[in-house]
């Protein structure tokens, strides 16, 4: 299955840093938050992270599992940026929602 990531980082920053994830993901840059806003995921509270000049806001950390016909099957969201679900939570979601998780 495909993995997509979306952040406000510049493409060149993502290119430079992508090694830290050791992840075969398509990593997208959303400088103007168009994608973030289309999903309604712009954080409304304090960002408490450095924003560069061109970036207005940050998304709320969110993971979505989407079916092959584009329907959201599962959402995991951090209501607190200091907390995230571990990989086991995501793997469990894949297993329960998809027949053959990779």
């Amino acid at each position, binding site marked *: 299955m495909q993995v997509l*990531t979306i*952040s406000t980082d510049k*493409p060149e920053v993502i290119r430079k840093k992508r090694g830290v994830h050791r992840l075969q993901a398509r990593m997208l840059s959303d400088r103007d938050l168009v994608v973030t806003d289309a999903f309604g995921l712009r954080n*409304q*509270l304090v960002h408490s992270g*450095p924003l560069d000049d061109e970036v207005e806001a940050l998304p709320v950390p*969110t993971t979505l599992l989407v079916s092959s016909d584009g329907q959201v099957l599962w959402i995991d969201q951090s209501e*607190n940026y200091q907390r995230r679900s571990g990989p086991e939570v995501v793997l469990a979601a894949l297993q329960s929602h998809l027949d053959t998780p990779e």
Partner: protein
Amino acid sequence: MITNRKKVGTVLGFVALTAAILTVAFWFRLANQVAIPEDRTLFVVAFLGAAGLGVAALIVGPRWFGGIPAILAIAIGGFLTFTVEISPQQVADNPIRVGDIIPVFTALDDQGDRFRSADLAGAPVLIKFFRAHW
């Protein structure tokens, strides 16, 4: 007497900084493991404790080289407490929900190539929004 007092203040300053550094080290270790607990009261107590020791050191009156770690402990303990306080996040009024069809979107990837959500059709996908690389 004054010398003794300064000694106590200096030692307190170093104790405060040590407490602050140990707590921060533990904090970042858990952060790396994605294991910061939901209830961070103990962390806040430790951060404020370190800052409090730093304040105590300054009140007692350390030598200058004891004052620096005291001030650092106050800065570190205070800042980390602040980050815990401002950490809640909230999405807009109408976020995407389970059952929704994802919006059509397009964006540049890290190679500068344009990605189109239409390319996703036919296969499931895991989409991860994250804050940024720092």
